[in-house]
C-alpha cells in the first residue's frame, strides 16, 4: 500500500483513513519528526486497526549530514570531531572506534597506560549513554522524575570529561597513538569520587522503577524479540543480549585491555522491554566494576603516546623546543601521513551495540572510503517487527528500548 504524503508537521496527525473492506478499517497515523518522544527527528508512519498496529514504517534521514562524505575529504587525524557528532551522547566511544580502526590500518598500538585510560573513558561514556537512555525512556513511559535524576548523575561524568579534554559533550579526546596531553592532576580522585557516588544513585533508580507495578505493566511482555529474529536482524548490544544471546565484543573479540578485566555480561531471558532495561542497568554496574579495576591496574607513570611513529603526532614539548619536531608536526597536521594501502574493519562494543568503522585506504592521506556502521541504524530495523500486533501506546516504549540517537542513525 502506498503512503500518502500529507504535510508531516506537528505531533500526531491523521493522514488517511481507508476502508479496506466492510469489516476492516485501517488508519494511517504519522508520528512526525517533531515529537516529544521520538528521541530526535524520527518519523514513524503507523498503520493502525483500532488501537492495534498493523505495520510501521520508520522514516529516517532528517539528520543526514553527509559525515561519510566528509570523511573522504579530511585527513585521518582531522576526522575525529565528526565522529563525536554521530552518537552525541557517548562521544568518547565513537572516537575510540574510529581511532582503533586508524591504528589498525597503520599497524600501531598505543602504550599500555593510554589503553587503560581509553577503557576508563569508554566505560564512563557507556554509563553516560545509558543514563540518557534511561532518562528519556522513563520520561516517555511516564516516570518524569527519572530524567531529572539521570541527568544529574550525567553531569558528574561530563565534569570528568571536561577536566580530561576540555569539552562536555563533543569530546574529541582520543588520538591516534594514545593521548598527546597528560592526565590532569585531580582526575583520578574525581573518577574515584564518582565511583563512590554512583552506586547509591543507581539504587535510587532501581527503587523507583524495577519493582514498580506501573513500570512492569508497561514493559513486561512488550516488544518481545525472539533470539532467531535478533540474529536475523543483525541486532547487537542490549537488544541482542536481552534476548539471551551471549555476544559482547569486549568478551568475544577483546580489544584494548578488556581481556585483563573481570566483568560479567548480563543476559535477558524473555527479550522484552523489561529485560533490556535490566540488561542496561546491569551493564552500568559492570562498567563501574571495570573502571574500578582499571584505576587499580593503571600504571601511574609511563608513556601515554607512541613515539617515533610516522602516524602519530610528535610530542608537544619537543615540538615547541626543537626544529625537527616542529617540522614533523607541521607536516603531520597539514600534509598528513600516507596510510598504508588496504582495508580494515574494526568493531567495538558501543553502548548501543556494535560500532564498526570500515576504512578503505588507497595509500593517500585521506581515507578513500570511510564507513561508519552504527548500531542504532541497524537496530532500528527491528521496530516494525516488534510493533506488529502491539498497541499504539507501546510504540514510545519500543522506540525507547532500542536506544536510538538520530545523529547515529542518519550520520
Amino acid at each position, binding site marked *: 500500500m502506498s503512503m500518502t504524503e500529507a504535510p508531516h508537521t506537528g505531533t500526531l496527525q491523521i493522514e488517511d483513513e481507508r476502508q479496506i473492506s466492510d469489516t476492516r478499517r485501517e488508519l494511517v497515523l504519522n508520528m512526525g519528526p517533531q515529537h516529544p518522544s521520538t528521541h530526535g527527528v524520527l518519523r514513524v508512519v503507523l498503520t493502525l486497526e483500532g488501537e492495534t498496529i498493523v505495520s510501521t514504517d520508520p522514516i529516517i534521514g532528517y539528520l543526514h549530514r553527509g559525515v561519510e562524505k566528509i570523511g573522504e575529504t579530511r585527513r585521518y587525524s582531522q576526522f575525529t570531531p565528526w565522529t563525536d557528532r554521530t552518537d552525541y551522547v557517548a562521544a568518547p566511544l565513537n572516537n575510540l572506534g574510529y581511532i582503533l580502526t586508524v591504528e589498525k590500518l597503520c599497524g600501531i598500538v598505543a602504550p599500555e597506560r593510554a589503553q587503560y585510560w581509553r577503557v576508563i573513558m569508554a566505560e564512563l561514556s557507556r554509563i553516560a549513554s545509558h543514563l540518557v537512555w534511561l532518562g528519556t525512556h522513563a520520561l516517555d513511559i511516564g516516570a518524569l522524575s527519572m530524567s531529572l535524576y539521570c541527568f544529574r548523575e550525567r553531569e558528574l561524568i561530563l565534569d570528568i570529561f571536561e577536566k580530561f579534554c576540555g569539552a562536555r*559533550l563533543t569530546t574529541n579526546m582520543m588520538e591516534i597513538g594514545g593521548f598527546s596531553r597528560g592526565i590532569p592532576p585531580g582526575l583520578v580522585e574525581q573518577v574515584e569520587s564518582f565511583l563512590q557516588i554512583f552506586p547509591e544513585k543507581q539504587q535510587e533508580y532501581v527503587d523507583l522503577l524495577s519493582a514498580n507495578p506501573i513500570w512492569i505493566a508497561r514493559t513486561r511482555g512488550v516488544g518481545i524479540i525472539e533470539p532467531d529474529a535478533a540474529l536475523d536482524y543483525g541486532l547487537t548490544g542490549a537488544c541482542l543480549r536481552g534476548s539471551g544471546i551471549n555476544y559482547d565484543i569486549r568478551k568475544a573479540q577483546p580489544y584494548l585491555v578488556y581481556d585483563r578485566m573481570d566483568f560479567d555480561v548480563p543476559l535477558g531471558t524473555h527479550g522484552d522491554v523489561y529485560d533490556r532495561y535490566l540488561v542496561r542497568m546491569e551493564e552500568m554496574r559492570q562498567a563501574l566494576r571495570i573502571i574500578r579495576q582499571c584505576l587499580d591496574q593503571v600504571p601511574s607513570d609511563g608513556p601515554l603516546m607512541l613515539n617515533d611513529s610516522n602516524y602519530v603526532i610528535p610530542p608537544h614539548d619537543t615540538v615547541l623546543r626543537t626544529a625537527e619536531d616542529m617540522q614533523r608536526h607541521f607536516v603531520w597536521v597539514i600534509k598528513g601521513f600516507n596510510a598504508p594501502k588496504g582495508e580494515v574493519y574494526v568493531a567495538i562494543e558501543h553502548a548501543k551495540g556494535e560500532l564498526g568503522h570500515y576504512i578503505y585506504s588507497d595509500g593517500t592521506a585521506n581515507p578513500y572510503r570511510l564507513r561508519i556502521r552504527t548500531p542504532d541504524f541497524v537496530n532500528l530495523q527491528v521496530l516494525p517487527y516488534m510493533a506488529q500486533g502491539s498497541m499504539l501506546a507501546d510504540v514510545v516504549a519500543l522506540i525507547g528500548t532500542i536506544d536510538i540517537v538520530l545523529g547515529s542513525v542518519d550520520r
Partner: protein
Amino acid sequence: MGLIEDRFEKNVLTTSVDWVFNWARRSSFWWLQFGLACCAIEMISASMPRYDLSERFGMLYRATPRQADLMIVAGTVTKKMAPIVRTLYDQMADPKWVLSMGSCANVGGPFDTYAVVQGVDQVVPVDVYVPGCPPLPESLYYGILELQNKVIKFDTFAKKAGKSGAEQERDRDRRAAKASLVGTDAVISSASVGFGTPTDNSYTREP
C-alpha cells in the same frame, strides 16, 4: 534579577501595566521542544537539575507549536527537515522569537555538505544566535537573557513607533546579529574544513 534598571531606555516612560505585561512576556517563555541534534542534549541538560532553565527562568517546554512563543533551533537543519521547521514556525502564534543555538543552526556548523542547510536563518528569521559546538548551558542562558532584552526593546519600540516600527527595528537587529556572527561562528566552522582538500568546482550558486 537586579539588572532590570539598566535595560530600559532612559527616555521612554512606560506605565506600570505595560511593565507588568512586559515582564510577564519575557519571563515566561514557553519554548517549543525542538531538538534536532547534539545541541538538543545540551538544551535538555540546561533544563535539568544543575542548570535549571525551567524553574529559574519560568520557561517551560511545550510539544505543540501552537502554545509556544520561542523556538530554540538546536542542531543541524537538513534539507529534508527544513520545510518542517518552517511549518512549525508558521504555526506558532505572534509574538514569536527564534533562538538559533549552536554552530549548525547558525551557519551550518562543521557540515558544509550536500544535505545541510547552512544556517536556520535561511528558513526562519532568527533573533539571537548562540555560538558554540555545542554551546555550554551557560551560553544558552546568555542567549536567553539577550532575548529578554530584545523582548523589552520590541515592546518599548511598539509603544514609540507602532508595531511596524518595532518590526523594522527587530529586522535591523537581526541583520546586526548576523553580521556580528561572521566573526565568531563562521571562523569556527570554516576552520574545520582542513587543508589541501580537493576543490569542488561544480558547486554552483543558486540561480
